[in-house]
């Protein structure tokens, strides 16, 4: 049935008078409705608790709360310092903290910013994991970093190649490195590819 613009379906919901949360009536058990209501209540809480919002309307995505950005940046720097002092496990924890902080950004803020922060943090955490030979965790991190930023992210492509190579998955490493080289030539990527190719031909012998 085509839905006309002035007709709507009344959904079985009510407002909890004390918590102001919208909930489905107990008679309905529609999982999609429940999920949507949950998202609505979350957004409402988000809007209510966000500083600088008085009228319940999300501001246009041109401005960003500067406080959270500096906090995340500072956490990243602390992680980098720990990394430089070779406290790799600590660096992993710090980057993890920074990631969870970035994910707590209000959803209406520019998503490009979130993407940029996350790709960097995941790439850094991957490097820390690599330094303590945590190849699987590093691979998962670096995959996310590449998904968030493919172009101009040769370090992440290199790290992916490294992880796969160290785990003996040379074919996958080769694919990953070739994929990385599609976004611009990088001598270190090419080097790694050469190593992987040598390992592959040695294995075939």
């Amino acid at each position, binding site marked *: 049935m*085509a*839905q006309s613009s002035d007709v709507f379906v*009344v959904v079985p*919901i009510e407002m909890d008078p004390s918590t102001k949360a919208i909930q489905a009536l107990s008679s309905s058990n529609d999982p999609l409705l429940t999920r949507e209501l949950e998202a609505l209540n979350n957004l409402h809480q988000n809007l209510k608790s966000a500083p600088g919002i008085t009228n319940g309307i999300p501001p246009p995505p041109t401005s960003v709360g500067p406080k959270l950005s500096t906090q995340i940046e500072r956490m990243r720097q602390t992680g980098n310092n720990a990394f430089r002092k070779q406290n790799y496990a600590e660096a992993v924890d710090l980057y993890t903290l920074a990631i969870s902080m970035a994910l707590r950004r209000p959803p209406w803020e520019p998503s490009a910013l979130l993407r940029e922060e996350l790709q960097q943090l995941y790439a850094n955490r991957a*490097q820390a994991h690599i330094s303590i030979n945590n190849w699987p965790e590093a691979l998962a991190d670096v*995959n996310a970093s590449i998904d968030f930023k493919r172009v101009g992210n040769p370090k992440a492509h290199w790290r992916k190649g490294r992880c796969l190579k160290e785990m003996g998955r040379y074919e996958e490493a080769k694919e990953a490195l070739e994929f990385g080289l599609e976004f611009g030539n990088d001598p270190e990527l090419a080097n790694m590819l050469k190593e992987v190719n040598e390992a592959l031909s040695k294995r075939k012998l």
Partner: protein
Amino acid sequence: MVKLSIIAPLVYIAVLVGTLAVFSSLYRKRKANKAASLEPWFGPHYPRDIYLTLLHQENPKVPDNILKAALVRRATEDIRRVVTIRQAKGSLQQLLQKGSIGDDLWTRFTVAEAEIEEELKDVAMEANGFSSEWAASIFQSANEIVQATRVRERAAEVAEQAATERAWWNEKRERASRELLGENNSDEDGVLVESSGSRGAARPGAATRGKGKSAS
């Protein structure tokens, strides 16, 4: 005789027009019915229904802030639908020209397109009802919410992926070390020297290799 000759053409015309009118109205009704009976392109629009239900709830009246949040949710779903429609349009047009898809599918698509346009106008009007400048930014905000949701979903996959990769890697290493131990055991049969010393080496040490790029 004279009378009859006037009535005859009039009756003829009346019958002709009547038949045409009946036929046309039947035809149109059937066509409308068919269009209405077509399956909608999208499923039910929950955020829209929730918003309108809340808007019409009287006892107790829903506060404005919740309505605003509900309107943002509605705009978010609209953005998702608009993107789907835009992405599908080009290829659907091509398929229609080639005759690969039927008219029914195309009708469903155009109905959905018209609906979403109405829906966007409606949301913009509602937004302006809350605040005079909101209509300009509500869809921008909604778009960011859609994107951010996608980013968050991807980020949530990381831990899962790490766990699967870790399980695979541990299993592989265990297999490798078992093979190694097996060899060691067979060695022990022959040579009885220092076989226990190599057992601890199954896990790669925490020493770092020099090649890692520095963090940025």
